[in-house]
């Protein structure tokens, strides 16, 4: 069945350092892989997505890498800021338009 999982439930980084959040998935038929950020008391917010036929995509301070060989997805955040503190979810979307989420990683920024 479909499952999207995260390697680590928590991640602490120093302000200014780069953050890497990892995710494993199992559904090879997914069309898109997406990262969401959720701040306390709010709904998830779209960060960046990557199509299944791509390996890398860059946004503003964020990069998503997709390794289909090992079914692994990562989110890299450059120069982490206090405002990046949140829970980050990976998700996958298939042709049936089901959007399935992983468990989430809590990112904490240390001053």
């Amino acid at each position, binding site marked *: 069945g479909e499952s999207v999982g995260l390697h680590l439930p928590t991640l602490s980084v120093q302000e200014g350092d780069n953050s890497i959040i990892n995710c494993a998935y199992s559904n090879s038929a997914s069309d898109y892989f997406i990262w969401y950020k959720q701040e306390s008391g709010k*709904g998830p917010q779209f960060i960046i*997505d990557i199509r299944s036929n791509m390996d890398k995509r860059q946004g503003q301070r964020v990069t998503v890498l997709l390794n289909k060989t090992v079914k692994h997805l990562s989110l890299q955040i450059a120069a982490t800021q206090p405002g990046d503190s949140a829970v980050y979810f990976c998700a996958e979307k298939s042709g049936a338009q089901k959007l399935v989420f992983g468990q989430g990683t809590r990112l904490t920024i240390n001053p």
Partner: protein
Amino acid sequence: DAGITQSPRHKVTETGTPVTLRCHQTENHRYMYWYRQDPGHGLRLIHYSYGVKDTDKGEVSDGYSVSRSKTEDFLLTLESATSSQTSVYFCAISQEAMAFFGQGTRLTVV
């Protein structure tokens, strides 16, 4: 928040009573979703819709039903609420990969 409104935002109800949560969008997006979020479980898909009157089950659909009679509205009904349905419920809309979420509804079943 991308034209999504969830109502109510908070509700306390008694076990065995019916409850309906509403999701309203102004974006004319085709796809709408209902998720529940619980500690340790992330976001779990309850039901989703891919058009008016077209709905399908997600991974935790037992005890829930949905209806979509108009593009803009997606209703989630708990026919007979149980304590295990205490959760935060999120509605989402999407066209392609990007999905936009509502602010959530905190439901407590006592």
